[in-house]
């Protein structure tokens, strides 16, 4: 029943209530605009919120992952086998056991490869750091960031670089006691001081918001070719010099413009990140 078919008094009270609600909606909307403006000027404000949320959500996330793992193992190891014939049961159990063993060994091999790469990096460069596992990602899809299971107690601090096998992943943006948020270099708000390894042309690598990056502020006169490797320049004060960022896949140098627009395929696929190495000391 619409308000127009109700008696005058009731119609009036509904309209008054609706106007009051809309007044509050407007007020909260302006409050959120104010908060946005404040957090644009002071990113620490957003970090405080993120830390607060992580301290609530991380235990829930860990519990959910543990429950999920248990459910998965119960499903794989028992329920899936219910209803099969007795003679097949032993075989299926054996196959299942061997399969899970293969998967487990494959996982272990992947993990050990990642850890070996990290150790190699540590040995070659003398970087000190912490190995972390990825436990979550930004659900909205607009921000390219991942949550890792290491925090303040492990020595992680804001702005520390995250790498994987000598390639840049991103930088720590917010840290709670036992978890941290890492902004990946493909995010639009990310920026890395970079240079073309072959010609030493300098620029800044910014994220596209998708799976690629762009290298900007490289002058038209600089020598850049498709397939060139892009590495960190160390001039941004966050990433150490010489870490791999990616490979040049497209170059646009419109006539009359001062800079080239260079498209880069990052060396690390952030959508498949499982383990990271946070550099805690690299000077």
């Amino acid at each position: 029943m619409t308000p127009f078919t109700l008696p005058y008094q009731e119609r009036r009270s509904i309209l008054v209530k609706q106007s009051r609600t809309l007044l509050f909606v407007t007020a909260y909307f302006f409050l959120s605009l104010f908060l946005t403006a404040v957090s644009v000027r002071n990113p620490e404000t957003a970090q405080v919120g993120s830390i607060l949320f992580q301290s609530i959500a991380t235990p829930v996330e860990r519990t959910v992952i543990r429950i999920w793992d248990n459910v998965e193992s119960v499903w794989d190891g028992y329920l899936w086998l219910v209803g099969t014939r007795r003679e097949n049961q032993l075989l299926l159990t054996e196959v299942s056991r061997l399969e899970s063993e293969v998967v487990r060994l494959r996982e272990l091999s992947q993990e050990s490869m990642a850890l070996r790469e990290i150790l190699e990096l540590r040995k070659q460069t003398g970087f000190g750091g912490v190995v972390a596992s990825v436990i979550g990602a930004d659900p909205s899809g607009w921000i390219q960031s991942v949550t890792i299971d290491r925090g303040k107690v492990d020595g992680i601090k804001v702005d520390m670089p995250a790498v994987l096998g000598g390639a840049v992943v991103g930088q720590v943006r917010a840290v709670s006691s036992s978890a941290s948020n890492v902004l990946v270099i493909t995010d639009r708000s990310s920026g890395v001081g970079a240079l073309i390894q072959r010609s030493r042309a300098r620029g800044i690598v910014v994220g596209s918001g998708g799976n690629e990056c762009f290298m900007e502020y490289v002058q038209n006169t600089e020598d850049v070719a498709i397939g060139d490797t892009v590495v960190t320049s160390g001039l941004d004060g966050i990433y150490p010099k010489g870490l791999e960022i990616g490979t040049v896949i497209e170059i646009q140098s419109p006539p009359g413009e001062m800079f080239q627009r260079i498209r880069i395929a990052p060396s690390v696929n952030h959508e498949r990140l499982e383990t990271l190495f946070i550099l805690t000391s690299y000077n």
Partner: protein
Amino acid sequence: MNHIRLVLTAICMSVIALVIESVLLPIGLPVELVPEIVLIFVMYLSFFQTNAFGAFLAFLCGLLVDMSSGHLLGPWAGAYVLAFGLVAIISDRVFVESRTSLSVIAGVLTLLTHIAYLLISMDPFSHILDASVLLIGKAITTAFVAPLFFPLIRRMLGFSLGEKGKIRKMRRTISP
């Protein structure tokens, strides 16, 4: 007392929804197909808690989403409050029991909320193709799951003041 209970329930449900969205669903789904469960909760609020307190709860849910992303505080809060306001305007004219109307509203609301988020956060549409795939994917999935989640939320919050008030109001309008 009931307000405190509703605030706590809203926080708990948003945190759980965000954990589902960020941890559980991405295991088997690409991010474009992860539904906006928190938005469905805000939609519920705008139907059954159509008052200033409901607007506050929508703002709170949005703020939690902002906090979870750790990027900026405010854009999702603003977008969710706008979504609340939009549905609140039409809430008296929508037959909530209809799954189709719930789906349509959830789909359109997802699109509008994301566009509002992009405008508030001043995020340039640099990758229009990626953005449209994300928007359409999320809108379709949210529209698809809204009729499933809506009764669930309703059952969990059925005891809340808002719904009782709404039922009382409906009885009052029906009785001569």
